[in-house]
């Protein structure tokens, strides 16, 4: 009879082995994304210049007063977008940027105020999308940190489905 503690350790080791093998296989298939098989999330930028950020209140004001001229961009996956997003926000997932870009480019002007958001304080997707938009020449791009959670918990307008 094995002592309980040994059994617990065996279960943990077996599970961890399954996990690491699965993870290695998963990233083999998507190796273009990263060369680090443990890289699920990227560390946050050490310092984000404040002019690249927009506060929740400012973002709300922009949404209320300038929607149509200003645009909200959801940087999360298409699936998360379909499950719920800020009303009128366009989907531009960091993971599938190029496929979604043409549709978004049709509505954006180079100087449009653009607010990019994802979910969670540590979420890096909005930073990735904002950087790529800026590289494409959009000058007025700002990030709303933790945007989805803040917006949803404030009870503001949200939509579901694939359309803004």
């Amino acid at each position, binding site marked *: 009879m094995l002592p309980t503690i040994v059994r617990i350790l065996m*279960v943990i080791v077996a599970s961890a082995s399954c996990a*690491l093998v699965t993870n290695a296989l998963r990233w083999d298939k998507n190796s273009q994304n990263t060369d680090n098989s443990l890289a699920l999330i990227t560390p946050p930028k050490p310092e984000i210049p404040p002019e690249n950020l927009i506060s929740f209140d400012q973002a709300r004001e922009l949404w209320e007063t300038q929607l149509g001229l200003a645009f909200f961009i959801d940087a999360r996956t298409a699936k998360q977008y379909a499950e719920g997003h800020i009303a009128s926000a366009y989907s531009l997932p960091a993971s599938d940027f190029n496929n979604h870009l043409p549709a978004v480019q049709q509505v954006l002007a180079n100087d449009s105020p653009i607010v990019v958001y994802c979910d969670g304080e540590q979420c890096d997707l909005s930073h990735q999308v904002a950087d790529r938009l800026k590289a494409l020449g959009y000058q007025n791009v700002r990030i709303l940190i933790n945007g989805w959670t803040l917006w949803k918990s404030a009870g503001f307008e949200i939509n579901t489905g694939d359309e803004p």
Partner: protein
Amino acid sequence: MTGIVRFLIAIYLGGYFVYAGAVKIFDPPLFAKDIANFQLLPHQMVNLVAIILPWVEWVAGAMLMTGLWVRANATLIGLMLVVFIIAVISAIARGLNIECGCTGGDQPANWYKVGENTIMLAMAAWLMYKSKN
């Protein structure tokens, strides 16, 4: 009678962990994000935990359901629940408004979750106490 209750609790608790584990196994990046939102672990640890923890949940849950090493797996599940309870309480204490990431879905980290986990912890403790192996 005790045997039936023990069986039902093992099925329920094991089933919950099998489900919770499976959901997260299919979407590690989402779970990694949920863990990161708790702001308890350094970044390098977040990914490792997001990859391994769901599998431990799944395996321990599946073994509990099938009656294998009940005591060891009930203990392991109990230990995980203690960690989850502490994490959620600390999130509440710090005023974080986040998803708990418990089952991958849309559940906030709140007192309801603490209560749910505490009930499951009691189930796990009871199984540990009642099981010979």
